[in-house]
């Protein structure tokens, strides 16, 4: 419904296809100047020191200015307003996707507010009821609000300001539709702000979207001012005011006895740690969420230098991207965006006594049904946890794509990974033993019985399951909404989480193909995009779309045409596997320098660090004799063989386990 209506604030101005049109334009030879200007801006933006106000002004100015240039450009001669509009949208999306890491939540104050909000919401959601906000009983149809919460929960899944904004609008729209239906059913007045805002606040609290404040700030700063108007602006303001309300909330803000409020709040706060932190203090987790998401580009650039060329290529093989050939910090199935990404990412440290590969696969292959059953049951819970956004809160890397990781995150990732492994191991083995014991006495039903062991291991399994949920987290929502709120957003962010990024991956490829001066370094810098494309394909296969194929193609052409050199470089790395640190470092460094001046500097240090990690990994793998999957020769694909080996090797066990979990979740999905 309302699919093509231009009055619609959701209208498809930057729908996938439109965005691709923009990219198409950029590929045109006469766009070279534009491309150069855009790249130039990106480079200088990345290089400047973060300053939210200045950054915002600079981006806004550049967007406005470039749009004006579009207007006068022969490429758009005779173009309709609509086409120009979508070009502008395309530009915004492209630009902000590129500089996201640098632009998102760069100031500590924002992160602090994020933390405060998250903590409050986590506490409030435990006892807040609609009537505390004077939401009439007739509106208390809580299950329906879940839909709205889910929309909001996607806020962190996008990079482009517009896409984030659409999440908010979708949420508001769902609320409004429900209010409207209730009002009509009750023959009451049409809902106005008196009805709407309280419900929105309630929904926001229940959703507790990650980095809420930073996300709102990001939209405010970087959504082109000319487009943050009218209805979008209004509902955006509502979201901002909901956040402000929560931030300054006190007992008198609610219809609740102050003493009761205080005691409930205390109680709730006391309960947060087990829920939210599970190892890491909520602050730490929250604090690092935005940066985690945001990551600095420089590291990403370096990182990508060695793999630079794999990225487009990965995009070229949507079908096989989860074969483990993904670049770097593992996207093998980061692809899936979930555990795989999370777990294998950090190289297992030699200090660990448990080999991750062994550990993960063993319990799952041996115990037979009971564990699987448990897992399946846990999976259902995981699905709902994912939907409520809880997983994203508890596991900050769960939805992180490789491109968003910073080198600085490795530490945290590694720590979390170790914790996870050990905990999982302990639980799985404990359960196994118990099962064995019980089985001897009782037979199979052992696994059915309750107890902390069980629930714990459910959550352990759940972590694997979340892989699936993570990957498809948006899927259900999209489907859910189809009949309801999202009609107008077809193919838009509502639909799937990776669309935007994937498209920008395309852009990388296309620009690179143009052979524009900067394009190449850029492409390599932006490993993220194609990775996301990969993840898109690998993880959320159902979301696969035509444009993707397009992406793939251009990426491929590009990589083939230009990578002879990298190819060699790559093989060299491969050969030098693991031991020749110097060499690797050197080649990486070379890569950086050759590829892109602006990032070269950061590249070197980065490269060496990576090399260390790598050799560490490789050494481990050797020791474990775990060289699975990745030992391809340096054929065309083999370029990323080292990476592949690395990720598969290290993560083999976990990946398998997650595969199983995947299956489990799938089953659950289908059942429900």
């Amino acid at each position, binding site marked *: 419904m309302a699919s093509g209506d231009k009055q619609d604030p959701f209208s498809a101005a930057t729908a996938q296809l439109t965005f691709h049109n923009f990219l198409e334009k950029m590929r045109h030879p006469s766009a070279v100047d534009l491309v150069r200007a855009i790249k130039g801006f990106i480079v200088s933006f990345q290089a400047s020191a973060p300053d939210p106000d200045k950054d915002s002004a600079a981006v806004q100015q550049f967007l406005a200015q470039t749009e004006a240039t579009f207007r006068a450009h022969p490429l758009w001669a005779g173009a309709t307003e609509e086409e120009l509009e979508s070009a502008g949208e395309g530009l915004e999306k492209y630009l902000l996707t590129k500089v996201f890491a640098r632009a998102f939540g760069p100031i500590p104050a924002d992160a602090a507010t994020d933390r405060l909000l998250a903590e409050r919401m986590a506490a409030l959601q435990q006892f807040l009821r609609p009537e505390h906000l004077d939401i009439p009983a007739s509106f208390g149809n809580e299950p329906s609000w879940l839909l709205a919460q889910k929309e909001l929960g996607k806020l962190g899944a996008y990079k482009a300001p517009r896409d984030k904004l659409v999440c908010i609008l979708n949420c508001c729209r769902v609320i409004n539709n429900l209010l409207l239906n209730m009002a009509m059913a009750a023959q009451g*007045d049409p809902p*106005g702000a008196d009805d709407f805002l309280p419900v929105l606040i309630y929904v926001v609290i229940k959703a507790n979207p990650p980095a809420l404040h930073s996300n709102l700030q990001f939209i405010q700063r970087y959504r082109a001012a000319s487009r943050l108007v009218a209805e979008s602006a209004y509902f955006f303001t509502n979201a901002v005011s909901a956040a402000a309300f929560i931030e300054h909330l006190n007992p008198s803000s609610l219809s609740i006895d102050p003493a009761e409020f205080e005691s409930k709040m205390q109680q709730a706060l006391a309960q947060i740690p087990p829920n939210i932190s599970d190892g890491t203090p909520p602050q730490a987790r929250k604090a690092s969420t935005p940066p985690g998401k945001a990551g600095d580009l420089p590291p990403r650039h370096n990182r990508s230098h060695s793999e630079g060329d794999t990225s487009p290529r990965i995009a070229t093989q949507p079908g096989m991207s989860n074969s483990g050939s993904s670049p770097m910090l593992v996207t093998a199935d980061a692809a899936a965006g979930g555990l795989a990404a999370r777990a294998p990412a950090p190289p297992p440290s030699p200090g660990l006594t448990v080999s991750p590969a062994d550990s993960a696969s063993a319990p799952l292959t041996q115990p037979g049904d009971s564990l699987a059953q448990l897992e399946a049951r846990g999976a259902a819970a995981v699905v709902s946890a994912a939907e409520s956004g809880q997983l994203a809160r508890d596991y900050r890397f769960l939805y992180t794509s490789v491109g968003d990781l910073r080198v600085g995150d490795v530490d945290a990732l590694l720590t979390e990974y170790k914790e996870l492994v050990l905990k999982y191991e302990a639980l799985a083995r404990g359960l196994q033993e118990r099962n064995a014991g019980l089985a001897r006495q009782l037979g199979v039903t052992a696994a059915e019985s309750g107890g902390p062991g069980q629930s714990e291991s459910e959550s352990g399994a759940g972590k694997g399951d979340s892989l699936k949920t993570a990957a498809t987290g948006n899927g259900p929502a999209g489907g859910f909404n189809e009949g309801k709120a999202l009609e107008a957003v077809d193919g838009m962010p509502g639909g799937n989480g990776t669309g935007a990024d994937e498209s920008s991956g395309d852009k990388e490829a296309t620009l690179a193909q143009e052979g524009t001066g900067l394009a190449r370094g850029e492409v390599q810098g932006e490993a993220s995009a194609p990775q996301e494309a990969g993840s898109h394909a690998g993880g959320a296969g159902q979301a696969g779309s035509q444009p993707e194929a397009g992406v793939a193609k251009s990426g491929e052409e590009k990589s083939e045409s230009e990578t002879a050199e990298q190819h060699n470089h790559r093989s060299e790395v491969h050969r030098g596997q693991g031991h020749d640190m110097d060499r690797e470092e050197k080649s990486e460094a070379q890569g950086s320098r050759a590829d892109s001046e602006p990032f070269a500097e950061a590249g070197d240090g980065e490269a060496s660090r990576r090399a260390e990690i790598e050799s560490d990994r490789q050494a481990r793998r050797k020791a474990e004799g775990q060289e699975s999957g990745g030992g391809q020769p340096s054929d065309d694909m083999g370029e990323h063989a080292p990476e592949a080996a690395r990720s598969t090797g290290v993560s083999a066990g976990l990946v398998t386990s997650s595969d199983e979990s995947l299956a489990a979740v799938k089953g659950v999905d289908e059942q429900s």
Partner: protein
Amino acid sequence: MGCSTSKPVTQQQQGGLQSLGREAESLDLKNRRVKLVLLGDSGVGKSCIVLRFVKGQFDPNNKVTVGASFLSQTLKLGESTIKFEIWDTAGQERYASLAPLYYRGASAAIVAYDITAPESFQKAQYWVKELQKHGSPNIVIALVGNKADLADKRALQREEAETYAESNGMFYIETSAKTADNIQELFQSIASKLPGGSSGSAGKQTPQPR
């Protein structure tokens, strides 16, 4: 409350209005967009006033808009058009501190109260002060006594409000969202008072006839 009878049912204007609206997107003096914020206690019928004004455009079956708390309507004024973008605010006390987020940048405001409810007039005066202190410098404020159809329950005399409005440089009008009385006039008046809005027409207290 109290505007159930004004629940919009007609669709007829829709097409015309929307195409007008689209033209008004291009910002020039002849086709301006005006942000208008709606303030007032909950229950005074703020949103009803707007719904009355926007009537046909708001159609429950038309899911294009995100919701009824934001509505837009284009008004013809001589040769030019003005597109009102109307921002409703939550009137409950506990949200009062959020209002600045909404009226920031607004060039017009409707401060509504219920002529049968004295406390809503107090609240209206509070909003007026707020706007004077923190609103845009040239903001056009309309003080609106709603529910004029409930004359027998009137608790506030017209004169009182008029005097207050005058001393605060606003204009006052009594409306009934229920009967649609003075609704068009209200918006016409606002339009004519906007800086550069009307081409010289419109006196202070005289609503423009349609």
